[in-house]
């Protein structure tokens, strides 16, 4: 937890410094006849965030390392959180480059099989049902178009 606290506090400090640097470009003072410059509010907010995160970094650094004080609950939990993070990454990358339907057709079986450890029948049933539900619910029912693949855009494929 100590390392986690310090890393996160340091990241917030970096973000604050980037914002402060940007505010120097924008100007954070008072423009006569105009009012506050564009960077004024972000500048002081970033200053506040910098101060608080520096304090949190100090608290983390001063803190002693204790047993059962880890960032993750246990090793298994850490692996699981990592696997879910990876799955969300996979899903979003496919959505962005190949559309929602490809994403669902690839993501769902991997998730249900790999993380859910279900039988192949369940995997196929889940994938088919979720894809059809999204299609009929969103595109047919609510008439909200979802992103599709470049192949669809060229008229070469149905999704």
């Amino acid at each position, binding site marked *: *937890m100590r390392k*986690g*606290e310090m890393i*996160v506090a340091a990241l*917030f400090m970096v*973000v604050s410094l980037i914002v402060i640097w*940007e505010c120097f470009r*924008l100007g954070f003072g008072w423009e006569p006849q*105009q*009012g*506050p*410059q*564009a*960077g004024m*509010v*972000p500048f002081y*907010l*970033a200053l*506040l*965030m910098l101060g*608080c*995160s520096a*304090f*949190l970094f100090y*608290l983390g650094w001063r803190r002693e390392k204790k047993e059962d004080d880890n*960032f*993750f*609950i*246990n090793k*298994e*939990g*850490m692996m*699981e*959180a990592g*696997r*879910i*993070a990876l*799955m*969300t*990454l996979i*899903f*979003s990358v496919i*959505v*962005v480059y190949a559309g929602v339907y490809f*994403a*669902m057709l690839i*993501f*769902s079986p991997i*998730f*249900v099989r790999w*993380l*859910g*450890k279900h039988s192949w029948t369940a995997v196929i049933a*889940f994938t088919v049902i*979720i894809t059809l539900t*999204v299609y009929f619910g*969103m595109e047919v029912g*609510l008439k909200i178009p*979802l*992103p599709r693949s470049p192949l669809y855009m060229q008229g070469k494929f149905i999704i």
Partner: protein
Amino acid sequence: METIGHLMMGFGVAFQPLSLLMMVLGLLLGLAVGVLPGLGGTAGVALLLPLTVLVPPEVAIIFLAAIYWGALYGGVITSVLFAIPGEPWSVALIFDGYPMAKQGKSGLALSAAFIASFVGIVVAALIFVAAAMPLALFALKFGPPEMFAIMLLAFSTFVGLGTGQPSKTLVSTAFGLLLTAVGLDLVTGQPRLTFGQISWLSGYHFVPITIGMFGIGEIMIDGEDRFNTEIKEVIHAKVGIKDMKEGLKAIWAFFPQTVLASLMGFFVGVLPGTGATPASFLGYGLAKQYSKHPERYGHGAIEGVIAPQAAANSAGTGSLLPMVSLGIPGSPTAAVLLAGLYMWGLWPGPRLFTEQPVFVWGLIASLFLSGTVCLIICMVGVPALAAIMRVPWGMLTPTIIIACFIGSFVMRNIMFDVWCTLIFGWIGYVMKKLKYPLAPLAVALVLGDMTERFFRQSLIMGDGNPMVFFDRPISKWFMIVAILLFAFPVFQLVKAKVKAGKAQAA
């Protein structure tokens, strides 16, 4: 009298077939959200927000509020039956609800909790009816300095009254406010904090960030916890007529306590820094402290189920009062609803009451109606709702993930929001693990633009002199209270140091 006329009109709106249909749909979705541990009320409302453009605003708000009420009711079920809180505000119900269930009184515990929820909502809705209009009229006197002061006051409640570490609360708030600053500056039109990214020019949108933090982040926490929480004995339950009768009797026996818990819950709910979760703990604590039999608590005392649940539901309703009348959300879920208001082109405050009476009074009337309908659904639907828990994790989680990403995308139809959901999901996970409070961040995301605009307008009014906030009678007091709340942790620290010093000297 005027209020009663308005309320009648509101019931006219709430009883329209479309409103009724959407309300029941919202309640069912909310109940499911409340039962599922991996999905909270805030994410649930945020997920469905983009779809509300398909119906008129007065129906949309009834629908979204119904999800919130459903989630408030639904958390009860898993707490009592499985000792797993479906929502943070139902943790306090485990203390006595689960022991009752183990004694074979699960039906009674559930029915008492549901009736208590109902009492909580009705008490809160009555205060709402009485207070909404005067509060909004009071806000008529507000100019930019007052609006800024009240927003500052809202943020200060997180620091002064919230449970998080003050520095972390401040970092969360500042981070949220900075995120809203990204994009074109409202006053000068300059691009700021965009670092040359075209897609950043239109700014970060509230919905993908909220869905990421409260949806994806929560899923990751839940997945990790899977290897820590031992599944306790699962108790099956059905609420029978007998349970309902006994539940009613129990509520009647503890009626003063129930109403008191509801009143207290309402005021806790109105403050942005506190919400349904602290309200339910407070309700439990107060009931225990002033009970004639405090020793019964923790071993299945029915009043230990009633008080926290009445307080939680009342707080949920209370959090909507400042949202509608002042534009200050009383909880993260209310913040999502406020984002909805802006999305539908509505402006909270006094103008809403005069220009959109159908919207305001429809919402208020729906409080009574949803409370009643939800009570009925819960009473008959417990077995079905408890069965939702049996949906395997390995199928539920991918469904929620898919819903989260689609929900954020359809808001603005841009791919940038997909990335936002992903990144803020991870950020939310880490922040939550390190106990950075996310509620101030959600509120900051909704209020950010407005806070900055009012701040700058005020400064222009005062020609650059910050004393403008202290020169005006109303804003002066808001500012003083806000500053005291911000300074509160420092007082506490000094007090603790003095105490420690004395202890050392002695």
